């Protein structure tokens, strides 16, 4: 450790000042906009206005609902996939994990765009449904909540699987056989042994998936169209179509509060785990 305080500040301050000037100060001013009244006082009327509008309510609830559903479904699939992956031979495990991570390197625009080919009116799903006689006319899957759900799930599932793989690998090897020998069925093994032992991984993955879904822009923009909005696409529309910067500030504040809440939860779980480690 070097002690020279002036030298340390000279090294660290440019980055801090840059981040403060370009990012922190403008964002704080933007957020405060939603709490100002025309004569310069403070008010929450922008928030009551925002939530009294039924379109805004729909979009807010849809965003929360999609975030929750994507998180739960990715957890269910994530556990199945992570179990399957950790049971593989080390060489195969590396390759399969690589395939799971691969999509994270591909542009989200490209990944989302693929669903237009699959879910569109003349897409693969509709061709298959009509060929099998399930429907006569093409189903409208694109530009719906279902399409956004599928897109978000594909975007964020790798994050959940990766978090659960490391959680399962850190679990004591004999926990599951021990529970089986003592007479637990598979449901009890999962609920009473695996879940508590992998809780941190689940919370980390869940936070990443949930905040990612809440703050998604590309997926609802491409797969939801201009009708099925989420908070970020609503915010974009408020600015670019209506020029309503106060509503945009309100949405920004809601998004930030929700992401921070999720991140604080993440940090809390992480520190709880460190405490356990340092005691052991």
């Amino acid at each position: 450790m070097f002690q020279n305080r002036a030298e340390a500040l000279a090294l660290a301050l440019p980055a801090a000042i840059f981040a403060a000037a370009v990012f922190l100060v403008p964002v704080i001013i933007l957020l405060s906009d939603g709490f100002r009244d025309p004569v310069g006082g403070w008010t929450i009327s922008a928030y009551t206005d925002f939530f009294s509008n039924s379109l805004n309510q729909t979009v807010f609830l849809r965003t929360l609902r999609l975030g929750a559903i994507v998180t739960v479904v990715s957890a269910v699939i994530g556990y199945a996939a992570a179990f399957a992956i950790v049971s593989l031979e080390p060489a195969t495990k590396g390759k399969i994990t690589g395939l799971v991570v691969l999509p994270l390197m591909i542009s989200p625009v490209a990944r989302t765009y693929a669903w237009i080919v699959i879910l569109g009116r003349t897409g693969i799903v509709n061709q298959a449904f009509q060929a099998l006689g399930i429907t006569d006319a093409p189903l409208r899957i694109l530009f719906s909540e279902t399409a956004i759900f599928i897109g978000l799930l594909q975007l964020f599932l790798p994050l959940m699987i990766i978090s659960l793989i490391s959680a399962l690998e850190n679990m004591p090897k004999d926990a599951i056989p021990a529970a089986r020998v003592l007479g637990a069925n598979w449901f009890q093994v999962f609920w009473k042994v695996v879940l508590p032992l992998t809780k941190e991984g689940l919370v980390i993955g869940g936070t990443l998936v949930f905040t990612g879904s809440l703050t998604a822009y590309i997926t609802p923009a491409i797969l939801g169209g201009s009708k099925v909005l989420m908070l970020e696409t609503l915010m974009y529309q408020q600015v670019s179509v209506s020029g309503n910067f106060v509503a945009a500030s309100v949405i920004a504040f809601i998004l930030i509060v929700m992401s921070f809440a999720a991140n604080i939860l993440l940090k809390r779980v992480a520190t709880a785990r460190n405490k356990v480690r340092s005691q052991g």
Partner: protein
Amino acid sequence: MNSNTLARSLFIPIILFLVIAFLIGPFLIIVAASFSAGDTLAFPPQGFSLRWIAKVFTVESFRASFGMSLFLAIGGTAAALVLGIPASYALSRYKLPGAEVIRTVVSAPIIVPGIIVGLALLRYIVVPFQVGITLALFLAHTALVLPYAVRVVSASLDNLRSDIEEAAVLLGSSRTGAFFRVVMPNIRGGILSAFILGFVTSFNQVPVSLFLSGPGVRTLPVDMIAYMEIVFDPSVAALSALLAFLSIGIVFAAERFLGFSRYV
């Protein structure tokens, strides 16, 4: 026990096949669709041709926005490293007053959704100070990459024993000399990894750049979204496939030559 083993030996390949088909399949479809000879985006592709892949290179706006994205990804990441390396060094090697505050400030852009950063920059930097859109995009992408730069460089500094540079200083080297001759060569891999991570993050970023676009000034992914809303031909599929192979190639090369995943 036997029926269990059988169930498990069936369950594992089926689950893995379904999950990987879901994650990778759409990308393969995009690649196939980009070789189509037909005029509209479709799968299975109608015939085989390279016309859409060739067309990507002739669309004027794609060429301009690709250049812009490349400039932002390289320039923004380089600027983030110029700011981030000294800051990481100070955070890991010095008793720094307010170290936690500084760490929080430089890593904050990662927690705040990009669309908010873009809008805040537009309203409170671009408009009041008459900053050009290109400069604003550059500032935004630098701020966006800074947290990654600090995180990855800090991690490789923490893995490097600090007594080597203390020894260099004791033997008469200046602090700066010790940094460039002793520390830098040892964290080169970390810096390159930070550069690649920053490049890919910046290049694929959409929300930060949404509001920061002007006549003829756009990043490539924003331009692709705008294009696909108007034209329904396979050229966006072709471009997506090309970009995907580009970023996969970069990351694979990085993993092979640098052991990228150790740092990220």
